[in-house]
């Protein structure tokens, strides 16, 4: 049981990292991208391939994963930001599908649909993070680092510009802010942080395949942010905890396995739709001003 709780903790921390980084995009900047699982996957694959094929240590692989995902994210951002609003959703959706297909079909590197087994546990200077407890601690450290990193960003004048862009892009340009440049940067940061979750996840499960990084996964990350509260980082933690525990709660209600998987998808969809209707600001809403009532 203890090991199971630690397993849940690692999973939760993975979603905390994903949620916090995704919140940067949709919560703070108002960029509706739906390709977060792709960056999660890029992080996982880069880290895995470097560890398996080149025997690089975890930390170096992690750094490389961040760099590659950030570059990929920038690659998505530059053409995608020529369009905005609904079109960005479609452009990022395309990116998500492309990345998934790369994972599926670049068999010499990614192992195709069969995936990559035997990923080593992370090692630091000869010490390997093996036990569930040690891994849970590592995941906590990484999640905390991601949280602090993003918190620092959103609390800075740069974060203020992000919120300004979300509120009124045109005025923000008129005030001399390089809106496109800022968007590219925030895309890269968000993708880079998501890659750390990928690295953490891959070295934890020791096996990855493309189906971990599908559109459904992107929607799950979206749910974490929406349910928790867009524009509120603590909300993303709450969302991550809730959405990691929810399937476990569903497991208590004993259902046939085939039914349970489908039911889970339905419940996620219902949850997302329900929040959109009844509490679009999420469990922990963003703390903002409300304009005084006109008299």
């Amino acid at each position, binding site marked *: 049981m203890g090991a199971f709780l630690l397993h849940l903790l690692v999973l939760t921390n993975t979603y905390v990292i994903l949620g916090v980084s995704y919140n940067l995009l949709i919560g703070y900047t108002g960029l509706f991208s739906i390709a977060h699982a792709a960056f999660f996957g890029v992080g996982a694959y880069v880290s895995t391939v470097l560890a398996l094929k080149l025997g690089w240590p975890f930390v170096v692989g992690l750094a490389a994963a961040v760099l590659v995902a950030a570059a990929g994210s920038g690659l998505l951002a530059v053409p995608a930001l020529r369009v905005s609003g609904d079109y960005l959703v479609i452009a990022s959706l395309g990116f998500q599908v492309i990345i998934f297909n790369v994972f599926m079909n670049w068999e010499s590197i990614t192992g195709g649909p069969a995936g990559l087994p035997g990923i080593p546990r992370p090692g630091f200077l000869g010490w390997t993070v093996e036990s569930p407890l040690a891994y849970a601690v590592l995941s906590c450290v990484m999640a905390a680092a991601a949280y602090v990193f993003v918190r620092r960003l959103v609390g*800075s004048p740069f974060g203020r510009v992000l919120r300004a862009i979300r509120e009124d892009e045109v005025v923000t340009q008129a005030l001399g802010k390089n809106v496109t440049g800022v968007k590219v940067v925030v895309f890269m940061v968000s993708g880079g942080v998501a890659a750390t979750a990928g690295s953490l996840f891959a070295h934890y499960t020791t096996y990855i395949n493309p189906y971990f990084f599908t559109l459904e996964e992107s929607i799950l990350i979206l749910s974490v942010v929406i349910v928790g509260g867009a524009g509120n980082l603590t909300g993303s933690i709450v969302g991550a905890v809730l959405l990691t525990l929810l399937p476990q709660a569903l497991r208590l209600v004993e259902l046939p396995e085939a039914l349970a998987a489908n039911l889970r998808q339905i419940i996620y969809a219902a949850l997302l739709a329900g929040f959109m209707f009844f509490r679009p600001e999420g469990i922990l809403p963003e703390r903002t001003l409300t304009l005084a009532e006109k008299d």
Partner: protein
Amino acid sequence: MESLLIVEEVSKNFAGIQAVNGLSVTLEKGRIAGLIGPNGAGKTTLFNLITGFHGVSSGRIYYQGTDITGLPPYRIARLGIARSFQDVRLYTKMTVLENAVLAQPKQAGEKLRNVYFRPGRVRRRDREFTVTVTPRLDETRGVGRIGFQPLPVLTRVNPLQALGLGVRRTGEFIVLLFGAVRTLARDGKFFESLGGPVAAGNMLAQTASTGVQAFLNVAAFLSVMIGIFNLLPIPALDGGRLAFLLGEAVRRRPLLDARKEGLVHTVGFALLLLLLFGVTLRDFRRLFP
């Protein structure tokens, strides 16, 4: 005169609609110029062309001698061309301070490398305010009004100072009272705005709900009011009696004999009671329509 902005043969075509056609303008330094024209003349389009929000179809724009044609809006803004919009576009979910700071150019903290690697350059938590600010947006007049609401500062004073302040406040009340009466009389609203004891009680009850201070303030004001009216030369009130005494002092003998003076006071008192009765009746009618 130095030419600050030169618009040269600029045209703008929106999918076949000619919004601006071969327009040339030169703006000189230190002069204020206006652009007028009917709806749809292309005024806004011209401003959008100058500030880079629209690309020109043809022509060139120079600012301080540099060609700014085709530059993105933020570059043009950084060169020093500021613009407003037809409707007020505030960041309504952000604080007044944030709205103001966003308009400041060259914020070090807006560069990510400064945020993480040169944190000393980024000012944080730099807000020291002693006023409450209530931003209100007046959309009909298109004014982004900022209402400054002074926060009352409570200071402790010694009893002697308190007495002095009380005297001053009473003086202010008296001036205020006569001012109000004069305004009401001038506007012919004196009688309709009269209120009796019920209205006064109602007013006290209302202010009591806003706080002890407001309540005490209104109570003191009513007190001063009663005191002042009591001193007015109205029969039956102390002021009336005082008037007779004053007359006696001047003439060195009573104005009227005691019985007649008593009658004057009685009649005055009756009239006052009548007024009180009428006003109270109206108070009730106002409170319970």
